[in-house]
């Protein structure tokens, strides 16, 4: 597609459940990023992939959060044992390289009840 695609656009889950959020980056973009945007805040960095490997996962808040990018394209953000505080919009972005501007998807709005 022409842009970064994120699915689902909305996800409602119960506290304690497991969720997966998917990101399809722009074709050919080697760099992929996940950000989290809480209500009233700017996006906060979670993790950065260069190719298949997580080059920096220092923004992941705790070990309930994990992300993969097995073939260097699609990425999945996985959240175990969800908590109400995980409710936010999860944004994915991709770029051709580290020094290039980011292209963002529309985000997945996660609501934990």
């Amino acid at each position, binding site marked *: 597609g022409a842009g970064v695609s994120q699915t689902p656009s909305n996800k409602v889950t119960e506290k304690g459940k497991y969720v997966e959020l998917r990101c399809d980056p722009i074709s050919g973009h080697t760099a992929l990023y996940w950000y989290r945007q809480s209500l009233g805040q*700017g996006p906060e960095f979670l993790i950065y992939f260069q190719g298949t490997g997580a080059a920096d996962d220092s923004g992941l808040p705790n070990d309930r959060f994990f992300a993969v990018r097995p073939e260097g394209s699609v990425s999945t953000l996985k959240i175990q044992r969800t908590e109400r505080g995980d409710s936010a919009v999860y944004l994915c972005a991709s770029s051709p390289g580290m020094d290039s501007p980011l292209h963002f998807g529309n985000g997945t709005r996660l609501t934990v009840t």
Partner: protein
Amino acid sequence: AQSVTQLDSQVPVFEEAPVELRCNYSSSVSVYLFWYVQYPNQGLQLLLKYLSGSTLVKGINGFEAEFNKSQTSFHLRKPSVHISDTAEYFCAVNGGSYQLTFGKGTKLSVIP
């Protein structure tokens, strides 16, 4: 470490009036600076960026920003706003790494 402060959380302005959205940053290294716009229910879209060179940067939709190193500012301006400019605007800084640090955003409301 770097940080971004957007001084106004909300800015109402009448249509066709000028607007300035303020952004200040702090960083211990040279920075790249960005403004992104987020329309309702959409992702972030790059408005403009400062990487080097001329301190006055022009972006899309008639917006421009000026990098002021001594004041550590990167304010966004438009001489005449339209209803369609109603959105949330985020200033962001990149201190030479891949991580963008965003401000909390400024909601611009254009009043007809």
